[in-house]
């Protein structure tokens, strides 16, 4: 993701007029990021990104539930939350490895 935005910033003359109009404000940065992302990210990576968001959501739900109800079945909480976190980490690894922009590091 960082490489993508760096690549986009490094070749300003090749970007579209719309991208070139991005201002320095936060909303401008966010909207340009979103546009770049949807346009330039391969679909496979978007699949992984969706999965990662899903993992984070599941983890947050469990964490909030634990915060409300208490840690009574502590082992169950650790198992559920830990599995969500672990899946997120593995998905991140897969994304890094299969990102075409990282081909140089993962032959």
């Amino acid at each position, binding site marked *: 993701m960082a490489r993508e935005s760096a690549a986009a910033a490094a070749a300003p003359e*090749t970007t579209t007029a719309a991208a070139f109009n991005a201002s320095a404000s936060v909303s401008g940065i966010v909207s340009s990021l979103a546009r770049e992302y949807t346009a330039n990210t391969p679909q496979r990576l978007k699949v992984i990104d969706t999965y990662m968001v899903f*993992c984070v959501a599941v983890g947050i739900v469990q964490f909030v539930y634990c915060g409300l109800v208490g840690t009574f079945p502590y082992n*169950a909480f650790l198992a559920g939350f830990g599995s969500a976190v672990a899946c997120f980490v593995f998905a991140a690894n897969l994304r890094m490895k299969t990102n075409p922009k990282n081909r140089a590091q993962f032959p």
Partner: protein
Amino acid sequence: MRLLPSLGICLALGGAWLKAVEAKSATGDRVLVLVPTTESAKQYTYFLGTLETRGFDISVRAASNSSVALHLDGERLYDHAILLSPAAKKFGSDLTAHNFIRFVDDGGNLLVAASSELSDFHRKLGAQFGVEFEKRGSRAIDHVSHLSENGSDDHSVVAAHRFFGVPAVLPSTFGGNNPGTVLYKGIAHKYEAKNPLLVPVLVGSTTTYSGNAATGGDSDNKALSPMDTPLSGKALGLVSVFQTRSNARVAFSGSTELFSDSLMKKHGSSNTQFVTEVSKWVLQEKSVLRETGHRHHLLSTGEKPEYYRIGNEMVYEIDLSVYRDDAWHPYVANDVQFEAIMLDPYVRLTLNRTLPTDSKSPLATYRGDIKLPDRYGTFTFRVNYKRTGYSNVDVKDTVAIWPLRHDEYPRFLTAAYPYYTSSFVMIIGFLALSTAWLWNAEPKAKTNVKDEGKTKTKTKTKQSATSKPKPN
């Protein structure tokens, strides 16, 4: 053949009728009465007569009679002893206060009467039970409520009317608005108020005090000077009773004349009733509690297991009877408590009386539904019932409470369902990711920039290059 059993029944019934007992002791009938001389026993004929009517086997002995013995071969020779000889320094050949204390320790009951001329024996015996008699020569005096008949006043015969309300010892008819009058001539004593085993039964009224000739309280009816502070009022004990932890009973009276015929016959005296009630209590004819059985079992199965488990629901039952009027009756109370103890009580529950199925039953069953605590270990189930005036009941049962086996815990906890669902949801999500990754079809390129198109085709070829081996 038929005649013999019917004759036997007739004789038994006749014999029972002849006896005509009012009350019989729960612990035994042999009574030893020690008097100064056998002649002096004549002044107690009414009192001793009532004891005989109540079914006691009385042996009257002189205090100096050397054959008097309390124990033989380690066993008590008598169940009760009544001491009406205040001046005796020792009884029998060598019975000291120590022997009588051992008699009480072995379960014998004692009724001790002293007087103004009491000896050190009585002082020592009283001290063992928290009763401190006044100095020798002093007496209880009341210038207001005393015996007065035919115009002659005797201020040293106190008309005592202040009773301590312990219904187990003295029925409530003695207290209340119209208390009886007990004529008392003798010495007063201090009773240890903090001792829970010692109960004062008859105490001085506000105008009673303990005086002797020196302080001016002699038979000349001289009053005290304002500087004197003798023992007086509620703190002045006239008759006190004591129950040991092993349910032996001792009564102390500073007056032998309380039991005498002359004071009993006086007009308006309730000596007879008072002496009857106190002697009934001391000789274990009333207010005697007994536990006849106790059980505990699981609530669900009704059987008694070898060991309990933590959190088990169980039932505890105990049967209690009280002895009065010559028979055992069900004991009715609302404060019988059950305790489950492992160094400290974990459960303390007041038991409820279950309604009896048999109205003639001599026992009352108390039952409690108990949920065992969350701790495992060796517990004691205990009913410790100690009430003033009643005998002590202490029933203990040792049980083991085991922890749950690993497969006796609940398999799924309701509080953890979100975590279970999240685990399964993660599994499903991973499978979804796998299918999406494997059968992913890139959408047609929708770029309008050369470079993006270049990168797209590059990634396309790269992806197709990398993705090829995977489906295989």
